[in-house]
């Protein structure tokens, strides 16, 4: 099993979700996140006060999938979230040892 974590632009969440549904992903966890990579912060002045946003709002998705689905998911996220500009985000892929469905203690791929 594999865990795919993606940090994407807020505005791309709907299209990424749609792309994931199209490749057969039924469940995912979405977090409100903040951060920055090379896309640094943003400063805006309002009424004489400076508002600096060092950490830009992003969303983070987590999906745990069977190994054969990993590449499809990565491709779906990458193509749906890409604008070509700095700040599009990152995708991380890591191994998962075990999955357990709390309701009935089912384990492995069946628990996904």
């Amino acid at each position: 099993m594999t865990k795919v974590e993606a940090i994407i632009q807020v505005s791309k969440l709907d299209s990424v979700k749609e792309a994931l549904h199209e490749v057969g992903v039924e469940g995912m966890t979405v977090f409100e996140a903040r951060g920055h990579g090379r896309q640094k912060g943003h400063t805006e002045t309002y009424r004489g006060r400076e508002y600096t946003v060092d950490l830009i709002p992003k969303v983070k998705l987590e999906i745990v999938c069977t190994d054969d689905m990993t590449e499809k998911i990565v491709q779906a996220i990458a193509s749906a979230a890409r604008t070509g500009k700095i700040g599009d985000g990152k995708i991380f892929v890591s191994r998962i040892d075990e999955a357990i469905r709390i309701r009935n203690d089912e384990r492995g791929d069946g628990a996904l």
Partner: protein
Amino acid sequence: MSSVISVRNELRDLYATETAAIGREFLGGGDGRKALARRTAVVDTIVERLWRETFVGSASSPSSSIELTLGEQPKGLALIATGGYGRGCLFPHSDIDLLFLHSNEAAESDLKNGIRNLSQQLWDLRLKLSPGTRNLSECERLDPSNLEFAISLLDCRFVAGDRQLFLKLKEKIIPRMVARDCQSLIRNLAELTRSRHHKFGNTVFHLEPNVKDGPGGLRDCNVANWLALISAMEKLKAWPEASTLPLSSRRSLDSALDFEISVRCFLHYHHGRHDNTLTWEAQDEAATRRIGTPDAEIANAADWMRAYFGHVRSVHRICNQLLEEIPAARSLLYRQFQGWRSRIASNEFSVVDGLVFLQQPDGIRDPEKLLRLFHFVAEHGVKLSTTTEFKVEQALPALAATPPRGSELWLYLQETLVQRHAADALRSMSALRLLAILLPELQGIEALVVRDFYHRYTVDEHSFLAIENLHRLKETHSDGERRFAELLGEVEQPELLYLALLLHDSGKGVPEANHVEVGLELTDSCAERLDLDATDRETVRYLVGSHLEMSAAMRRDVFDPANVKLFSERVGTPERLKMLCLMTYADIKAVNPEAMTPWKADTLWQLYISCANYLSRSADERVHTHDAGYLGASNLAHLNSLAGVAGKRVKHFFEGMPQRYLRIHGVGDVLTHADMAAGLRPGGVQLDLKHVRHSYELTLVATDRPFLFASVSGALAGWGMNIVKANAFSNEAGIVVDTFYFTDRFRTLEMNLQEWDRLKQSIASVVKGEIDVERMLRDRAKSQKTTSAKVKVSTQIEFDDQCSAHSTLLQVLTQDAPGLLYRISSLLARHDCNIEIALIETEGQMAIDVFYLTSRSGKLSPELQRVLGIELRLELAPAPVIAATPKS
């Protein structure tokens, strides 16, 4: 041993057979009380039988260490049912509260093994036993850390054992303990109840409520009865013969109790465990089975839930009233606070212990007095007393026949909506069915459950909560919320914002329809009912129709200038942007307590400031009637609507006018301005002065000339007026439309009607150069007291050449002061700067002035900007404090 096993098997069979039969009977249409009574009787039978097997002298009772002859009961031990079991209300999966009562500690140690054995056997039968062992003296002591035990004794019932011992507990110990510790019991019970209510957001209107612990649930029914019982026992020093609750409360409670018992009983069967959550699935099934409402007309789950909320609401009301009315239920500090609040009484209403009473109860039939009552509630955060509620309910049928409407209703409603406790007043009006009479548009969302994964409350409660969220901003100490609180302080007509929040989800009352579209229809109907003027109606309509748009915009890239531009242009004006931002904030926050995360609040604020900046930096985009594609769709519609009325004259007037002008001014204003422009004579000036809400509005139409804006600002300052806001626009033909909003510090206009004309004449003379404005200001300065500013605002001056194709933007933020606008604008005029657009605002003690300037028909040169920057800084620098020279 075989006898023990056979008894256990016999009891297990009995329990299983009876449990199944009770379940069948209940789900087949039986009532909850009957099911609970039958289950209590079964458990009584089992407990008594095991008691006999364990304690009563017999050949098979080896567990007791004391010697008993055949058939003899052990002395000094009684088995007592407490809590729900004691009341005879044993729910299918509830714990069985049993008290093993000893006469003294010696008896306790003698019977220890027997108690353990009996408990074990009950557990083996899968009965969820919750046993306690106490002696008499322990029962008499009130342990503040275990209030539940003392309260559970109020429902004690003899099951088996030493009856004399039980009677001693019931007749002597409990009355003595209650009489002695009454204050503490009530106070602790009240605190527990309030903290339980707080966990549920102090509202009954949850989409998936908890039937036992939620406000208005079964626990509250019990609390109401306990509070009444404890109060009565304190007075009588004994058990009262009957409930001391007023008859009307008793009837409501009994009826609610019947209903809620059936619902909870059903939930235990539905979930198959001790779960009291009325989930959506359970609501569907309960509605189909007509649980608790066999005779009512129930078409669907929403109808059934309305019946549910009707009952829990009355329980919640009675419980809260008792918590307010019983003196001991409040802390000393709270009592002092309420005592202080009693002083807020008026000649119509008195306040006793935080409850409002009518000075003349029959006068409440007067609709205006009724509306004043709820305004009083909204202003002071007090609750209606039982008698006041009763009187209001009596007055409702007559009111329903001829409900107040029009500007009279709006006058009271708007004054109520802007008060700090408006949401409480609205809840109270809704509970008494008054709100639905006044605003039938809200009928559809009353106690309405709309199944949405994120929403926690019914639609009406969500709307009240949204209003409450805005009012709470005024008291916030959090940095994140303070910025929204400041914004709220700047809103010119907060009552329209609150009305829009009240109506924003009204469309949800029509199932399957687009709730925004239906909401707009209901808003129109409500605006008609309240006789709102066209501009106010349009504002409320805009807010209701757009209440989801800012949330949607937050899901796009809020840093992308194209998105900011698109959204800003859709919003149109800074005032609408402020209201929409606050509406979005309040709406999201009212979805559930966790919905407005800091992440969302920051994103919303970022979008707001980006759009606010965009709107002030794009104000000079011009209207060109021949280039329809250049205009937004709404502007085009606006133009066409005007052209239809006044034809070419109007088109000619707004040719080349900034788009911002059309966004700020409604159709009526533009027609008036066009008429004023048409009536202009060479070198003349047209003036219009009117009172708008808390300020005056002076509109000036003239041909452009140097020092025009400065002269009028100076003249107003010379009259002692405080300019809080101003706009200045000009069209292609050089016609200037300047609007000044000012407050009348000395009430000159309010107290002297003839001064209206004199002010206009004075301004006209200043514009024509017939009066020296400098002299007016000098005269004013002589009589002016110098006051030091409470909040120091440092001056910031910024020039921007990028935001406009034609002009240079100058933004000045500085300490507000009399004559400030004159000083700035005359300095600009001295440098031959033409003010194309001026957007003047005041936020507390800060003046925020934005000017779009041209010099010789182009942008300001860098050199001119530098010089102006220096001179403005000098002009706006605080006056130096000169130390007094010591006398020689």
